[in-house]
């Protein structure tokens, strides 16, 4: 497969998968079990994304670096009811500051 073919096939498949979610019967979303699942889904996905974005490298290896400290500070800020934007900026500042002094 040429580079262009790879790029285009992957792109078309990704779009098709996205569109599929909009055209399957709405009845798939009815019922108590589906309702429970759709309520739990964002919790599980967001938590998994927090874990992966905090503790893994681009290659999938586990690491404890400046991000862990930044996310810990962000969690404290959230517990103190800080606004979303403050939490995000605070995390970036903590990670950048730690790296500037050679930690993480």
């Amino acid at each position: 497969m040429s580079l262009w073919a790879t790029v285009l096939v992957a792109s078309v498949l990704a779009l098709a998968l996205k569109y599929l979610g909009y055209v399957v019967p709405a009845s798939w979303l009815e019922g108590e079990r589906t309702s429970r699942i759709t309520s739990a889904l964002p919790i599980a996905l967001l938590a998994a994304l927090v874990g992966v974005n905090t503790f893994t490298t681009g290659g999938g290896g586990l690491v404890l670096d400046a991000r862990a400290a930044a996310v810990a500070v962000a969690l404290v800020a959230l517990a103190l009811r800080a606004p979303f934007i403050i939490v995000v900026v605070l995390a970036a500042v903590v990670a950048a500051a730690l790296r500037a002094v050679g930690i993480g």
Partner: protein
Amino acid sequence: MLRQSLSVAAATGAYGISFGALSVASGLSLLQTQVLSLVLFSGGSQFALVGIMAGGPAGAGAAVATSTLLGARNTLYGLQVSGMLGVRGLRRLAAAHLTIDESTAVCVAQPETRAARLGFWATGAGVFLLWNLMTLVGSVIGNALGDPRRYGLDAAAAAAFAGLLWPRLKSVDALAIACLAAVVAVVLAPHAPAGVPVLVAALAALLAGVWRRAHHDPAPPHHWPEEDVEVAKP
């Protein structure tokens, strides 16, 4: 809520710089890199695709398969948001295109339909614009611009996900699902392709969640009003 959309878009869009640089370094042209951000438009899938292609053209099949497997979660997102968005025709195509982690997360976190729709479109369009702009910046300047890690943008993205998750952790069940998903994803990360641990963690947590709630708790309402108000505030 619009501020939330902008924060998520800014934090995520910043990753476009590293994607652009990595993609060009993997042997893709500037135009191929931009087509991925414009058409494929799903960060995890794009990173996986160019990461595997860096190993040579023999990996093309695996690259497409991994990218597509990662994109499968967008189908679930579409199922989840299509009822709230109520779109038809061209608008449905546009909505499908913008269906990603960030737009779905902001959408489902809103208390009522109007805010959910606005949150979806604002986040989806914001991320799309910044992601593509930053992909171009990354491709053109490449590594010369420096490491986005230096500015703590990777930590900002993790904090943004934590910020979206926090208001939902109102019950013991929710906390248990979140902890299980995070642990499973982190433990799996060294042994699975990028993005797959998140999918598997979500499935494992869902099974646990369904079983536990089915046996011990009444079914939760589809929306939790007091949580939704919390989310809408920032």
